[in-house]
Every structure is written in C-alpha cells, then in structure tokens.
C-alpha cells in the first residue's frame, strides 16, 4: 500500500526553480535515498515531503490525506530530521526531548526510551550546547522518532554521526517508511533499496543500487 504519493511537485524560490515536477510513490515500509549534488533540490524535496514547505505546484498525499490541507493531522505520522539539529542549547538532552513530549501530549518516558535508542542515556543530563556535533545529531534523530512516526524524513542524518552511523540509522529506520537524503552513496546503498537521483530539481530515474554506486 502506498504511504506517499507525489504528483508533479514543483517549487520555486523567486525565479530559481528548485524542484521541477517530481513524481513519487513510496510504499509502506519502503526506504528511499535521495541523492544529488549540492543545490540539486534534495533539501527542498525533503521539506515538501515532511510538510514543512508547501510546494509552488503539485499534489502530495500521505496516508491518503492531502498533505497540505491536513498537515497538522499528518504530523502524527511524520518524523523529520532537518539539516540543522534545531535543539535548545540551554536545555539538557532529556529536557529537549521532554519538551517535545509535552508538545505532543506524550509521557516523558518516551524521551528516556528515545535517548536509549540513540545511545545518549549517559549524557541525558548534559546541556545540548555541551554535546558534540555528532551527539546533537543523535538527539535530533531521537526527537524525530519520539512519537513513533510511520514516515521518517531524514536530511543528511549521517552528518557528524561517526563510524556507527549506518547501524544507528538502520535501527531507527526499521519498520518505517523512510526518505533519506545523503551524499554518501555507500550508506544509501546499504540502507535503501531505492534511490532517487536529483539534478537541477529534476528526477533522473530511479536507478538500481548498483548503478548508483557505480
């Protein structure tokens, strides 16, 4: 069953065409990597899929719902890791997650579970601005999975994660539909059976794993 159906997604920033009619169907549980050079439109596409950005044209349905008319309802389904971690520097790792539990009317016990899953239990009481860049990225990933989303949208989540990035991402991606943007072709190949190559905002087919690596 298709969880994400995008038809002709296009977006402009002023005169700049960032996305030029992307069509996409993602089945439940499917993992897809979005590859492309800087400026290819990866972040714009991911922001659209996460409902953080309304495209200039096109239609997006997630779980059968119009993604922009029903976006507040859909946010229960979507977890998004943006380019920047977007943490509160003066709050501890645990407090950052507990705050998001409050926003989503969830018990604080979910924060402890998420910290444990991303390997940050030992630094739960450390302020976010005292965490390394990699730990901050883990915390941003923990925040994205706090509410057990069905669709996970990850914008270069491997940035600063370290050697066990693939293992951590494989853990959080399990049993979820995932769209992952990365520059790391090997990581994309390992985690995602499907890839979407973007060039100047246009889709260049959905090549197989091997052709992407080559």
């Amino acid at each position, binding site marked *: 069953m298709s969880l994400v159906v995008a038809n002709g997604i296009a977006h402009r920033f002023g005169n700049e065409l960032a996305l030029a009619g992307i069509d996409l169907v993602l089945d439940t549980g499917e993992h897809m990597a979005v590859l492309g050079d800087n400026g290819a439109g990866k972040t714009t596409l991911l922001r659209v899929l*996460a*409902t*953080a950005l309304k495209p200039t044209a096109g239609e997006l349905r997630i779980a059968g719902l119009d993604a922009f008319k029903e976006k*507040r*309802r859909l*946010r*229960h389904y*979507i977890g*998004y890791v*943006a380019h*920047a*971690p*977007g*943490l*509160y*520097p*003066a*709050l501890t790792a645990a*407090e950052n997650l507990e*705050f*998001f539990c*409050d*926003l*989503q*009317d969830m018990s604080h016990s979910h924060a402890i579970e998420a910290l444990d899953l991303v390997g940050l239990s030992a630094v739960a009481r450390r*302020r976010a601005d005292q965490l390394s860049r990699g730990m901050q990225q883990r915390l*941003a990933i923990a*925040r994205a999975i706090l*509410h057990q989303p069905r669709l996970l949208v990850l914008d270069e989540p491997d940035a600063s994660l370290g050697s066990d990035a693939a293992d951590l991402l494989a853990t959080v991606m399990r049993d979820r539909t995932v769209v992952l943007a990365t520059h790391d072709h090997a990581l994309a190949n390992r985690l995602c059976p499907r890839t979407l190559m973007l060039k100047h905002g246009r889709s260049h087919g959905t090549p197989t794993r091997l052709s992407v690596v080559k």
Partner: protein
Amino acid sequence: MNPLRVAVAVARKDLLSEWRTRELVPALAQFVILALLIGNFGFQVDSRNANVIAPGILWMALVFAGLVAFGRTFAAEREQSSLEAMLMTPASPLAIFAGKAAAAAAMLVLCEAVLLPALALFFGSPISIELITAVLLATVGMSALGVLFAAIVARVRARELLLPLLILPLWIPIVIAGAQAVQSAFGLPGSYDQAIGLLVDFDILFVVLTSLAARFVLDE
C-alpha cells in the same frame, strides 16, 4: 493535543533557557535603570516636577525594554533553527503563541520589578497597587502584540529595524491609557478608573486579534 500543556511547556522552556543563559533580563534591568538615570539628570528633577516627569520616563523605559524583549522571542528560535521543529509537531500554533507570549510577558514583568523600585528611588514616586495594576495591564496588551509582530518579522533580515516601525504605532493606545492611569496613580488630574477600563478594553481587543492572527503567522 492539550493546548494548556503546550502553552505551559513553551513558556517553561523559554523561561528555563533565560534562567540558564541570563541573556535578556539582566541586560534589560540594566537598560531600564540607565534610562531612569538619564531621565533623572536630563530633566533636573525636583520634588515639584518629579511626578509629572516620572510617568513619561516610565513608559519610555518600558516601551524600549519591551521592544528588545519581544524582538528576542522568535529571533532566538530562528537562529537555532528550533522553530521549525516545534511547528512540525501537531501542537496548536495558538498554544505555542500563547506560551511564547506568556514567557515574554513574564520577562517584562521581571524588568518592571526593577523599574518600579528604581522609579521610586530616582523620582520619589510612590509604588502603589494602582501603579502596579496599570503597568501589569499594559504588559498584557504589549506582550500579545509584541510577540505576534516578533513572529512576523523573525523571518526578515532587517527585523531589528522593522519591529519598532510596526509595533510602536500599535502600542500608542496602550501607552496613552497606561500613562493616564499612572499619572492618576501619582495624584495628577485624570480619571484612573476610566484609564484602567480603557487598558482592559485594549487588552481584550489585542489578545483576541493576535490569537486569531497567530495561527496564520505561525502556520505559514
């Protein structure tokens, strides 16, 4: 979603961040004291004119402290890219707005807790329930408008310039009614009850209008 839980969490988060970083309130407290000091020496205050000058100095200090306080409410969120993460949750934008406005108002109240005793020290103006009521009522309307416009300008580059240009004209009714109430509280001619009634009316009007607008401002 429980809007009250969201609003309390947002306000608590902002106040906890301020408590730990002490970025804003100490600077604002220093600013209001300096403003009173300049006013005290600039106007050659004596016992005959102190109560005439003091309300003007009070509102000048409060308005400029408010501009700085409200300007930071969304600017900090933008700088640390945390606003999008917060808005990506199913939480109601109105509850988020209410939490941010409550935290900003609480920070302004802390400044007022420094401002009013300093005003009494420099100008010999009595601190009374009437004075505190007028200032607190003005804070409600100022916060609602201030935080809404801070959210609107947070995404533009010249926000420090734009915020005063947009917000000062809208604060004028609050300042006029507030100044009238404070003058009456200091024993000058004028109806205190009428001024307080006006402040309550403005508070209701601005809270309702900003609540209606907040959803659209934060959602887009």
